[in-house]
């Protein structure tokens, strides 16, 4: 059963690289921010997958902290795109 978690984690990492391609060639800044948001969610999913793989619940703590901090960063960049930060 551990092989399935390993393969799932590797596929999620490849999906992160695919979202990086969208960041590279996105037409607008909002597309880049949306792809970065998807990358944040995928990192949280990878942390939960690692907690299943290594049978360690400490990885889920990392996922919680990463979700909260990336939320703050996303809100800040959203205000930057909207033009409220002068």
């Amino acid at each position: 059963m551990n092989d399935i978690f390993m393969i799932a984690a590797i596929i999620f990492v490849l999906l992160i690289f695919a979202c990086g391609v969208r960041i590279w060639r996105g037409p607008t800044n909002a597309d880049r921010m949306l792809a970065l948001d998807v990358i944040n969610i995928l990192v949280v999913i990878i942390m939960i997958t690692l907690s299943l793989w290594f049978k360690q619940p400490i990885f889920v703590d990392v996922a919680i902290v990463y979700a909260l901090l990336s939320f703050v960063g996303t809100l800040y960049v959203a205000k930057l795109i909207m033009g409220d930060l002068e």
Partner: protein
Amino acid sequence: MIDIIVTVCVLISLIFSILGVIGLFRFPDFYTRIHAAGLVGSFGILFMGAAVLIYAAGLFFSGEGAWLNFGAHILIALVVTVITGTTSTHAIARSAYRSGNRPDAKSDALKDDIESMKRREEKKR
């Protein structure tokens, strides 16, 4: 039995995440790409959390002590991710619309609302 259910949940999460990232590339517009990104943010992470919850239930039925650790942490992680994911998606869509990113649609009913709202804000000043 528990192993099979956990594996199926992980596979469902994997399938929804792959479909969401494919939709991030294939959709033509920004506002339709938000739809594809929401697929990753809702089903991808909810089924992965369900996998860990079922794994914790398996630990509980086999009599091990680590089930409360897994279950409590994954519940907090799911609540945090659901709240922050929806809020950040709404913030990105709002900022994109207000910065002049128009959707590829025939009729844009929100445009008139935004203009009337700006007029009201100017009148209030």
